[in-house]
């Protein structure tokens, strides 16, 4: 018996692909940003921190609406996309990736930033006096000591991208195999009063997310060195 239709499987696969790609890209781009936010004494820091945290408080439809405009043929992101020959980004998978990255940015940056702030300056100074250069220090000292923060960031970024709806609908629409993710698929089933399929997908997403978050909590509790709360408010 096949519980999921082929369209469901396509949506599940697309969702996992999107979430994985967004998490990886956000870790890569979010780490330098988190580093800067944790270390900088720049007067622009508060502005950057606020911008980073903005997706937390903004309705996804608002974010999605402006991203849609930006990614349209007349928008700045759309023009860049056209210039690269990738077409406008709206209603495309790359567009969805970019939108999801912006949407999940605070969930990745803040745990890393918190971990780096907790770490402080001292281990870096010690490493320098032991002859370790900056890159060496980052990989051999900073990364191992802030690992719980990175794991939190990856899991939260992944889980949060799995669950997004408003931004996806605005920016990606509902194109099967391209932008039709699980949450949108569920919405469609509900609209069509197909509650059985809606239940199946919803329950799967619920259980998967729960398992993921439970794993994260148990991991961060098991690590005896540092405890990172899943969420900490951005510092004023």
């Amino acid at each position, binding site marked *: 018996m096949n519980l999921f239709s082929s369209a469901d499987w396509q949506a599940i696969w697309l969702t996992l692909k999107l979430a994985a790609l967004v998490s990886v890209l956000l870790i890569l781009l979010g780490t330098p940003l988190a580093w800067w936010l944790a270390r900088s004494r720049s007067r622009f820091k508060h502005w950057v921190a606020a911008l980073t945290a903005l997706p937390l408080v903004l309705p996804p439809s608002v974010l999605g609406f402006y991203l849609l405009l930006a990614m349209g043929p007349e928008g700045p992101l759309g023009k860049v996309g056209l210039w690269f020959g990738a077409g406008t980004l709206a209603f495309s998978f790359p567009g969805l990736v970019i939108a999801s990255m912006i949407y999940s940015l605070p969930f990745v940056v803040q745990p890393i930033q918190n971990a780096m702030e907790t770490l402080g300056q001292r281990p870096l100074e010690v490493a320098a006096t032991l002859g370790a*250069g900056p890159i060496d220090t980052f990989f051999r000292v900073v990364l191992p000591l802030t690992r719980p923060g990175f794991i939190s960031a990856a899991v939260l970024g992944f889980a949060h991208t799995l669950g997004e709806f408003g931004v996806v609908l605005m920016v990606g629409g509902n194109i099967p195999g391209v932008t039709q993710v699980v949450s949108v698929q569920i919405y469609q089933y509900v609209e069509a009063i197909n509650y059985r399929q809606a239940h199946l997908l919803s329950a799967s997403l619920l259980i998967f997310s729960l398992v993921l978050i439970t794993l994260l909590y148990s991991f961060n509790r098991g690590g005896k060195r540092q405890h990172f709360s899943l969420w900490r408010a951005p510092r004023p």
Partner: protein
Amino acid sequence: MKTASGLLAKLCWQREDFELKLELHCPAEGVSAIYGPSGAGKTTLLRCLAGLENAQQLEVSFNGDCWQSAQQFLPVHKRPLGFIFQEPSLFEHLSVRENLAFAEKRAGTNPPVCSFDQAVALLAIKPLLGRHPAHLSGGEKQRVAIARALLVKPKIIFMDEPLASLDMARKREILDYLEKIKRVLRVPMVYVSHSADEIARLADYLAVLDKGRLLAQGPINSLLSRLDLPIPLGEDAGVIIEAAISDIDTQWHLAKITLSPGQHLWFKDKGFTMGQAVRIRILARDVSVAVQEPVNGSIINVLPGRVVACEAEPHPATQLLKLHVAGYDLLARVTRYSSQQLNITAGQSIWIQIKSVAIAP
């Protein structure tokens, strides 16, 4: 900057209402102590020397190699130095052995200060090698941190109040290790402390810092016996004498050093061997003077000497005398009343009694 051996620094560092402005010269051997009260700028100075502080007007050179000048800045990780922080700063994610290996792996091409085994033996950390820092006491962590600093092949070691975070017993224990390192390895050290005890035991060269200014710097003996110097030693005023054990009296458990032929100092034998080099500290409050040779007293160390100078003290009741005995300078704290009664003046011959001699072997 002129080429010279040792550590030369010229700095002007400002932060809010604090200014650190001085020229420092630490010799290329032995322990140079930077001494001063809290808030004098000692730690900042040491961090500036190591390159950990972002100071603009700073010139630092070590044995002729420029570390920092207006034109260049050698990053900390490229300087041949070891640094011991006030609180033990081991990497929590690495075991003791891995912490040591971290330093060993990144050591430059300088000649080694000591081998891995030697460092482990010197600081007695062999039983700790497999443990993680979370399972070490404060003193153990600091010992590992010291061994780690040795393994990075430093040409000079900076220590920022390495005993400050420890209790008295641990302090004494780590001091013993530091003395051993000083004796065995002969790597120059710059040692920051506000404790006169630590300085007296370790330092060969002294720089006195107060409110961001250097009050004096020079070899410790000549500096400690100066009267005109506003060194805020207070109760700890005293001098240091280094000599070899010349006799051991097994019946009374006393040991002796000879200051000059016929002039000796006796003190408690702590299991010395003949000829062993010892460093003794004689506090001004333990020295008294007499115009005639004292007889039938309980004090064994009675030596003839001469008054070199008298200096008033912050408290109006006492006076500090600088004395010359058998080629050595001593300080004595006496009341102004006695001084008046005995009519003590500079240049006068006098008998000197030393009540107790503190040993820092």
